[in-house]
């Protein structure tokens, strides 16, 4: 037994230090040197204050802004301190009720919109922090935002199109729009 314990203890200690301290600390040093912006959270600053991360969605509910996807984090939506989805199953009545409530709210906020509602606008994301929406979801909200800002529809449409993130290599992922970046661009329009 002792013959096994000595190598076990020693190897465990040394491999732990190697993989559990040396490796993550070396990775941190290299990441900070090579990609400091990404390594620290792709933060967006304004007037010396952090106003968010490019990668983490925020809750938007005002008429002047594009809205992101429903978020199931608690106690508040888009709580990045505690990520997660609704975990509601597709046949659960609570899920169908939640979708119904989201639908009613959207339809009320977009009285002139005749298109049927894109699915990502009424379903909660997996992380609860999804920073993006589909193009269909962005176009669905155009009229409301244009109206609230007194902005020509064509100009707003162009702004959205300028913010489209396409598929990587034309194949991976989905075309989408980053809601926070789009809204910040909106606020920057004179």
């Amino acid at each position, binding site marked *: 037994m002792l013959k096994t314990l000595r190598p076990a203890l020693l190897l465990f200690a040394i491999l732990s230090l190697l993989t559990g301290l040396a490796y993550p600390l070396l990775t941190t040093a290299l990441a900070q040197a090579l990609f400091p912006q990404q390594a620290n959270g792709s933060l967006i600053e304004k007037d010396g204050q952090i106003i968010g991360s490019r990668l983490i969605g925020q809750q938007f509910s*005002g008429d002047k802004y594009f809205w992101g996807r429903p978020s199931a984090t608690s106690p508040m939506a888009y709580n990045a301190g505690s990520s997660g989805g609704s975990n509601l199953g597709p046949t659960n009545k609570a899920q169908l009720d939640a979708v119904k409530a989201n639908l009613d709210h959207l339809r009320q906020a977009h009285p002139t919109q005749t298109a049927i509602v894109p699915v990502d606008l009424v379903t909660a994301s997996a992380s609860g922090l999804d920073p993006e929406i589909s193009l269909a979801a962005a176009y669905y909200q155009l009229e409301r935002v244009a109206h609230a800002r007194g902005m020509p529809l064509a100009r707003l449409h162009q702004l959205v199109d300028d913010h489209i993130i396409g598929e990587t290599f034309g194949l991976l992922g989905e075309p989408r729009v980053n809601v926070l970046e789009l809204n910040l661009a909106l606020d920057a329009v004179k």
Partner: protein
Amino acid sequence: MSTPAILQLGLFLLVLLALAWPLSSWITRIMQGENPGPLRLLAPLEKLLYRLAGIRQDEEMGWKSYAVSLLVFNLLGVLAVYGLQRLQGALPFNPQAMAAVAPDSSFNTAISFVTNTNWQGYGGETTMSYLTQMLGLTVQNFLSAATGAAVVIALIRGFARHSSARIGNFWVDVTRFTAYILLPLSLVFALALTQQGVIQNLLPYQTAHTVEVTHFQQPKLDAKGNPVNGKDGKPVMLDSQTQQQTLPMGPVASQEAIKMLGTNGGGFFNANSAHPFENPTPLSNFLQDLAIFLIPAALCFVFGRMVGDRRQGWAILAAMLVMFATAVVVETSAEQAGVPQLSAMGVDQQASSLQSGGNMEGKESRFGIIDTALFTVVTTSASCGAVTAMHDSLTPIGGLVPTFLMQLGEVVFGGVGSGLYGMLVFAILAVFIAGLMVGRTPEYLGKKIETYEMKMTAITILVTPILVLVLTAIAVSVDAGKAGIANPGAHGFSEILYAFTSAANNNGSAFAGLSANTPFYNIMTGIAMFFGRFLMIVPILAIAGSLSAKKRLAVNSGTLPTHGPLFVVLLIGTVLLVGALNYVPALALGPVVEQLQMVSGH
């Protein structure tokens, strides 16, 4: 399957094979004790390490010593991870001042990470200090993968050698696999992930001043912090608002890299690979898919190389590929079809150039249906268990696919080492069945398969179904088990079945609505994970020892060739048959019933 879905699957397999082939050459050389290229410089260091630890590098072990060393090493891991969680409040690298984790949760997590399961009852960003994440969890991500690899290399030696009682030196195998294979791959991968946006720092959580004010409700608390109940017995809710967002930080990329490469799957954050800080882009997602399959695929080639017949490795890989690709097709179709009840309400689930459509509950916009379905199948064919979607919100068939893939015993690529050793056991069973059919003594790779090997094979194949079905039966029969259910009806049964399937097969993904961080589930899944891992490893090492000692038989006209299409079909048939016989009744009660309810509108 749409054209983009087919193209993406094709690209994935192409890149995978292109990377796995050269890696298999490297792994073979490392595990046979060579020091190629730059490693010659490290050889003296390695020797010094062995001398300090009292290990004789060239002294090989019989299967019993190998098994004892492995068990002792892994038990030390359990103690270390348990201890770190319990003491983290008093240890450094804890900027958020995370308190000690509860004993039952610590026990569960310790077993979970040591067994390469990485089932998580906790939410990372609200529970674990950076030290626990690094020195506890990251370490086990490496060592549990290296343990699995050591076992499969020992088993391959059993086939490759003859008339020898030795199967290798566990200490040397684990050290070399960790230091020369997992570490360099992880470092490169971690930096690639950081470039894509995965965070890597030791900062305290940051606070952002958000653009808009968020309004929400939260329960009123009394002076002791307990929720106050109103007259109706429900908690009193207060209207609240905030313009701050807490952004979690931490050494994520380094853990993310080995989480994938080691087929571990334990997320730094609660949302795992759905979290934008763990998996920010479609490219990072594609790389994670690749990283999960890379070593399991390469090990198939290593097998071919070490037994001196590369076609043997290709045959095993072909069987895995067929089952994998089929699963991708079913999963993608089920999720793309969406939920009929939503269409009836007037929700647009149709795929178009403007949206992915489909069942988007619990999925991320950047991944849509195609990338998510591919990842879901990859992570459950391999015993990884990382998730880019909340599996609890998958459609019934979309949830059945990952459940059944795990129930096949995690042999479709499977975990690092564990996937191939599981599949080789099925190969032994397949030649045994074929032998019975034609009335010849079964043999595989020149080794006669006899009573002893078949007994051990039976144990390894039966241990996980017994754990899954018995523990599920207990959990649905007692209040403590039923209390965890989040979704009513058939789906609730699926949640429990999925939990024990995932735990016993060392996958680690979850139908996460299940409240599993309770003493009942922490202990029950802990049992499933521990025995699901080590009650397979020990008999497999026994097979390795027994095969190694046998003579090699010459190939003759009566030998069943194990490298052609006939054997591939036989192997797939064996895997599917065993899986179906064990699990069809249970699946019928869960996902199948739910599917019928969904399409009939109930």
